[in-house]
Structure formats: C-alpha cells, structure tokens
C-alpha cells in the first residue's frame, strides 16, 4: 500500500483543468519560490497552523502538551514554537481550530476513495482528478499509484507540476496523465534560479521530453509585477509554447500576496517579495500581448 503526504483534498475545483474536479494537494516541493501561495506545501513533514484569533483560551493544549510549548497565563494562551516538538497532540484537542495540523499521511487507496465520491460530477461536466501541491512528482510512488488507480477507474487525470525533478519520473507519467498543467515560473534563467532556488533548463528539458512523448500540456504562468511582468518574459513564454507540439495553451495567473497570511500562521516570516497583485488591466494586456503580438491561440487569464 503506497502512502503519501497531502495537505488537502478539495472537491468542486473548477479551474484545475476541465470540468468539475477533485484536487489532491500533495505535500513537499523542491522549489522554494519567494511568492509561494501555499507555504504549508513546501515541507513533506506536517506543519502546525496557529491562528491566535480563533483561540478560546480553553487551556486544553497546555494540559496536553508534554513539551511546555503552550502556556496559559491570565487566561491567555501563548504558543512557543521553539519548544514545540510538532507532535500535534494539542491540535487533537483544539476544537476552536486555533491549532490545526497542515498535512496528513494517507494511502493512495484512501485518496482514490475520496476522489471517487464525485464521479457523477466528473461524468456530467467532463471533469476528473487533479494532482497538485506541492510537487506531485516529488512523491512519485504515491503519485503513480493514484494516477494508475484513477485511470483504471476511468477518471480523467490532470497533474499540476513545477516540472522540476528526474526526467524518468516525467517520462513514466505521460501515459497516466491526460493533461499536464505545467508551471513556468519565469523564463529568465538567472531570476528563475534566484527566486525559486532551482535552475530553469531541466524544467524545460522535462517539458520537451513530455511533449515529445505525446503528453498534452497547458502552460500555467504566474505573473508577478516586480519579477516577470515584462514583454521579455511573455516573449519567452511564447517561444516555449511554439516549441511544443502538444501544448493546448497558456493560462495566466495573477500573483497575490495572500501566501503571507499563511506564513504568519505557520510562524514563518513574511515573504520579502514586496509586491502587490497585478491589476486586471495588466493581466489583460499581457493576455492581449500573447494573443495579438505573439499570435498565440488559447491564452486564458481566467485561471
């Protein structure tokens, strides 16, 4: 039985591939993006979310904790992450939701059972299952097991990937994945390395390999004002798109700084990416640029 670490399974996802989908979010990612929207997805291990304003100061965490990480003083609760051993005993008795575990280990069968629940909605909307994360290929055994299970149950499969990892992993997924939602974080190699912690070329190499093996892709591109909202980057995206035989289009996504709200709850420092979201106008100009100037069909900014 293959086990993996996930941080969520969401039903009724409408923008993670075609139709109504169930998205399984896997935990653990080889990239370390400055703008990460889901910081709890980075580590394979479980994380502790602490949301002080939900706390009702019941004191049960303090009573349960063997490591003195929770302190009750004047009916106020203080959580000391330095003392926390991440045993998550406290979260088990926290009914207010102030302490919550991010992440759980489940088997592929359990994940599939959850995915199976919305089968009728996939059938009626042309939807299916999407693996996202985190990076699904970072847990290749688990990912493969879920994909195989979904395929043998005739459930449409998508995977959202950062594209970084051993080439053979991507090659073996091609027959199992009906649509790759392929993230291109940046097309400038220097910035890519600086902002994500990994080099760009292997990602493009994997993309080429998947494309040549007949894998269908959509490029998913986050536009970040202070980083990549430039014609140069859009030209780069267009170039990648044109180099592929089985790419269905480019989806533009707008960066937003909401990841910081989760970083705070994880006890992490805010991102040093001092940046607002792009405006609607910027996004539509980028879309028009790709469509009109680069002559690319299938550019979407709805997702």
């Amino acid at each position, binding site marked *: 039985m293959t086990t993996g670490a996930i941080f969520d399974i*969401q039903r009724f996802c409408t923008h993670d591939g075609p139709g109504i989908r169930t998205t399984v979010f896997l935990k653990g990612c080889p990239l370390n993006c400055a703008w990460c929207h889901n910081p709890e997805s980075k580590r394979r291990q479980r994380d502790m979310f602490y949301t002080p304003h939900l706390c009702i100061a019941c004191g049960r965490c303090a009573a349960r904790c063997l490591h003195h990480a929770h302190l009750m003083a004047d009916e106020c609760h203080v959580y000391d992450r330095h003392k926390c051993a991440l045993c998550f005993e406290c979260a088990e008795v926290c009914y207010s*939701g102030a302490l919550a575990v991010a992440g759980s280990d489940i088997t592929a069968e359990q994940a599939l059972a959850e995915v199976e629940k919305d089968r009728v*909605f996939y059938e009626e909307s042309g939807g299916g299952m999407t693996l996202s994360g985190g990076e699904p290929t970072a847990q290749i055994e688990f990912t493969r097991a879920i994909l195989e299970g979904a395929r043998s149950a005739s459930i449409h499969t998508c995977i959202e990937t950062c594209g970084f990892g051993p080439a053979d992993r991507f090659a073996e997924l091609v027959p199992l994945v009906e649509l790759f939602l392929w993230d291109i974080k940046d097309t400038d190699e220097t910035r890519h390395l600086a902002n994500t912690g990994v080099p760009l070329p292997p990602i493009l190499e994997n993309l080429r390999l998947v494309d040549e093996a007949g894998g269908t892709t959509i490029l998913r591109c986050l536009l970040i004002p202070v980083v990549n*909202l430039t014609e140069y980057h859009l030209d780069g995206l267009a170039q990648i798109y044109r180099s592929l035989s089985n790419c269905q289009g480019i989806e533009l996504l707008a960066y937003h700084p909401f990841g910081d709200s989760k970083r705070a709850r994880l006890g992490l420092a805010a991102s040093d990416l001092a940046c607002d979201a792009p405006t609607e106008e910027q*996004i539509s100009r980028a879309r028009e640029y790709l469509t009109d100037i680069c002559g690319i069909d299938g550019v979407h900014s*709805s997702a």
Partner: protein
Amino acid sequence: MAKDNGINRRDFLRTGAAALGGGLLYLSAGGQAEAGSEKLMQTLTSPTTFPSPKRLSDITHALAQRGLSGEFGRATVSAGVKLEDLMDVTGVSEEMRCAHAIEFIAERAPLRILPGERIVGSATYNEAVHHAIPIYNKGSVSHTTLGFDKALRVGYKGLRKEIEDRQTRGGLDDKGADVLNAMKLCLDAAGLWHGRHLKQLSELIAQSSGDEKAGYERVYANLRSVPENTPTTFAEAVQSLWFMYAFQRLCGNWSGIGRIDEMLGPYLKHDLASGKTTLDEAREDLAHFWVKGTEWIGGIEGRGSGDAQHYQNIVLAGVDAHGNEITNEVTYLVLDVVEELHISDYPIAVRLNSHTPDKLLKRIAEVQRHGGGIVAVYNEDVVIKSLCKFGYPLDEARRFANDGCWEAIVPGKTNFIYSPQDTLLMLQKALPLSGDTKGNPDYPDFDGLYAAFAKELQTAVDAHNAGADGYSVGGGPAPLVSLMIEGCIEKARGYYDRGPKYTVLAPHMGGIANTANSLLAIKKLVYDEKLLTLSEFLDILGSDWEGQENLRRMVLSRIEFYGNDSDEADAMVKRVFDDYTSMAAKVRERNGVLRPAGISTFGREIEWRAHRTATADGHRKGEILATNFSPSPGTDKIGPTAALKSYCKMDFSNLPNIGTVELKVLPASVKGEQGVRALVGLMKSFVKLGGCFMHIDVVDTAMLLDAQRHPEKYPNLSVRIAGWSARFATMDKNWQDMVIGRTQQAV
C-alpha cells in the same frame, strides 16, 4: 533576489489596487447567509457579478429602473372606502358582496398608463399589496397558480360561456346559483376595467403625437380584443396574460403565473414564421411583462424591495401533458430578459429532466452566475414520478407548476395550502427538553430514544390529518379566483368550498437537518462513546451550553453532519425522512383533501428560534438553523458537490410536495467558460442523482462581510485564489478585507 534585472523593455507595471485579475475565488464550503424571509427580502440588492449583454431598448431599461426604484409601489393608494359605504348590502350574500366589491374596484381603481409601455394594466390599490381585497377588505388568495393557460386560450368570453352553459344545465342549489352569478359579475367587472383602459388610451392617443402616440396606438391595438377573446398575435398574448394577471392582483390575489413559455411559445412561433414579429421585438414585449412585475416594489413601507415577489412564480421548460419537451424561444427570451434587467420579482424555476438540451442548461448557468438566486431548477423526472406515486394521473403530474414558492401543484386546478411543523420541537418533546423544563429521560439505548421521537413525529402527522379533514369547506368567497380554477364552475362551488378539482393541505416538516444532526450527536456522545449521560447532556442543552464551550466546539468540529456526503450522517437524515414520508403516505387523501408530504422552513428558521432550545448538534438557543432541506449553516464543510450528494441520498419520489437544497458558490468559482461548464455539470448531476429542487446562489460580498462579523456562522467558508486556499475564518481582518475587496473586483 533579482527584481527585474533591468531587462524590462516596456513596463507592464502599474501599481494600484490589487485586482483579482487572473485570480480565483472558490467557495468550497458553505456557511449560509441569513436565510429565509430575510433572504427573500434582499432580492434586488445583489450586485451584478458578470456583465450582461444589452439587447433591450433604453426606454425599457428606463421603465425597469423606475419600477425597481419603488416609484410605482410607493404610488399605490388605499381604496379608502368600504363596500358598505358604496351600496346597501342588506340581503346580499357574501359571495355577491365580494363580487360587487370587485366591480367597484374595476370602476374606481386609478389607472396607470405610461409613455413607452408596451403593455398596460396596473394593480394600483395598496390593500392588494398587503394581500387583501380592496373595498371588500378581507383576505385574498395566494399559494396557487390560476388557470391562465386556459383563460388565455378561451378568453373571458369562453369562461363566460362555460358559466352560462352550467347555468343552463341547471340542477343548482341556491349556493351554486349564487357562486356562478358572482363569478359572472367578476367577469363583467374585468370587462369594465378593460373598457376604462381603452377609453383612457383613446384619450392619450388624441392628446399625444409622434412616437408616444404610436406607442399608445400599438398598446390600444393589442389590448382591444383581449382578454375577452383569444389572442391572435404574440404581442396580444403577452398583453392578455398580463391584463388577466394584473386584474387578479388589483383585487388582492397573489397568484403564480405558471408555465409562461408553454402559454406564449406557440404564439411566438406562429408570429416568427409569418414574419409578424422578430425575436428582438418579442424580447422587448416580454421584457415589459417583467417591468410590470416590479410595480409593487416599495408598496410596503420600510421593507425595501424584496417584498415585491408576492409569490408571482414562473415555471419554464419541461414536458407538456403529453410528455413533449416544451422548451421554445420564449424560454430563452425569458432568460435573456432576466439576465439583462436583473428583475427578480418573478422567481423562476426551470423544469430539468434527463433530456434537457445543453443549450438551455448553459443559458440557465449564465443567468445563475449573476446571483440573486432568481433561477432555480426542478428535476421533473423525480417530481413527476412522485406526483404519480402520490396518485395524480400522469398527464396532470406532467402539468405541474408551483404555488408561488416551489411546492408542486397542478396549476389552474388546485386549492393549495401547507401546514408547517418543526421536527426539532418534536425531538425536544421526546427527549424531553422543552423551554425551561428539563426532563428525566430514561432511554437505555438510542433506538428507544429514536422511537420516542418517531412517536412525536407520528403525533404531528396525525394532528395534521385531523386538521386537514375539514379544510376548505364553506370558506369565504373568492369568485374572481374560482373563475380560473377548474372544477369551480362545474361544481358551482367556490375556491374555498371544495370547488377546485384538487384541494390540497400538505404537511411540511422543517428542521430535519438539525433534528437528524442532533440525533447523531446524541447517539455518538451518549450511546456510542459514552462521554456523558443523556441526562447530563440535556442539562447542558437546558442551560444553553453554559460553561461547555469545549464540548460544543468538539461537537461542531469533530462530528460530520448532514451535507458532507458522510454515509453515517446522511443515514440518520434518511431515517427521519423515510419515517416521515411513510407516515404521511398512509393518508394521501381523506375527506376530499390531498396531503402530499413536503419539507420546508421557508423563513421560519427565524421565528422558530423562539421555541427552539439549544440543540445537541452544537447550536445555542437563538441561532438560525438550517433552511428547508439544506445542510445546517457552517456544517457542510466540503462544498456543493458533497452537499448535493447528501441531499440526493433521499428518495424524493416519496416527497410529492418537494424539499429544497440551497447551494452557495462564490462568483469566481463560476467565472469564465469553465464556470458555466461547472454549473451545467452541477445541474446535470443533480438530475442524475435524483434530487428534486435545487437553488444555486452565487453569493456576493455581503455574505463575506457577514462572515467577517460572525465567523462562528461560517467556520468552513474557504476561499481560494489561484493556487492559494484558506478558510476565511482563519484569516485576520486585513486579509479578509483583501479577499472581500477582490471578490468585489472579481465582477
């Protein structure tokens, strides 16, 4: 970190307000906005979240704005006189008194004919807005849909002939003769009102010039021979239907309209084929029917606009009495008009089935995205099956429309009313736990406790049946209504005197979601896990969870309740559902009264708070609990698909009077073509899974603001923007404000 490496050739940057742009917002779990009557009252306030195409003329838009602003409703006047002031009523029967009052209304009510209007006829008396018959000053009729289809077909002339034929046939008792005379007097009154309109139109034509004059002439021409006669064109048919409807309204009756596309579709088809009209012209005509529907907005002081619905429901699509799909151009024009004008005063229910054309589903989805919950859907495959199982002949079942809410009735043939009961009250009695008294329960196992609840349920069903036996016998006069209800002329008996072909008093249970959830919580805590005794639990509930916040939170956070596609929780709901429906099915008809089971709360989850104690499923006294047959607010943690699946586990072929599920989605989750596809998928799944009535609400920022103020009501409202997702309640205010700002901009 490299910022831009100096390689920007041209700058796309312009810092400004964070826009949603390519971002997404999903509502993956439902807290519910304050429901029920308050919800009903905020119909027109929902902001538009998706741009509408503009197809209608500026004149039509301007008139719509005037109606929506409450101008016409505020201008309604009191009749200011009583019947006794106008005539000597000595020796006049009640039936005839009422008919005379209607005659006086027709003679005296102010007319309103505006430049630019394509149809005329206005209910200008304020008593009518308050559900009373002006001048007669007694209650009027609602909760039914009159036989506009037949009246349109045969005209007032045909109805008059039917009455005369009946009189000629004879064999009438005094009461019967009286009832028929009163109906005839009502027809005369309707003719009088019609004549006044033609006269005033003639005057307006004489006084005006240019476009305005041409407009009046057009109206005059369309009104001249209807509703007395059968319409010959689509424009006449629209005018005729409205004129009959408006006269009913003027006299205080709040009827549903019924299947407007079935009624008007053939006229449009004919006119389009013969080149008499175009789709654009027809849309314009139909739009004025919608504009007219707003004329009572503002008619009730201090209640805003939502009071304007007045049960004027419209049903679209589905099969006709012979089983043929009736979807036609009128179906689509109605959706066009609603999409463009955002007039929610005619709540629309579309009858879906397993063969509904994709084109129609797509149009419904596009309109639903505008929010406001204007368009809901039936699964007629199940509704018709349930009506047949209940005992209606197939052709009658296929004719179903509703009573003004969503209860299925045969339109034009039915006296309908329902009687609401709260199952939570029954559980409180069984436990026992009611108000200030705490009981001394002795249920050694859960089944014993459940049996005590089931006994209370049976008692309630029995009480309903006892009350229903004498329903609607020798009731007050309603001759104008009787005229349009099949059976009344033939039997020569009034609407409230068993005249209608069908007299229905439906039992409606409300509170089932929280009742079943409470049963589940008691079963788990007291009998399965033995965390506390029933007695202890009841003490806690009796003192409104005082000092037991932890336990309460545990119940709320650790038990999966109805609405999460959890077989255990849904089985408990199903147990209550099955018991209720089989109890009700034992007496489907008695003493001439039909009793189809329904499940509803409508707005009563608000008034019922007064008698509800704290509940075992974690709610304090005074909280607003589940509406209709929807999950309890905040407990459907997984989203619309799971909520729908839970609901659809019931066998709705056993619930002939319907039970509704309300699903809420955020605008961004239904954005773009993908969003339309998702909504279509939800509707098709709803049909396939065997639901019976579904209301999809695309929520607006008002709900997010409410969630910010009352996070406890929305513990699981989760928002998703692109790859990011979080529960709304876990975010601090600044972040919440940003989400709210983005939702506003998502439009």
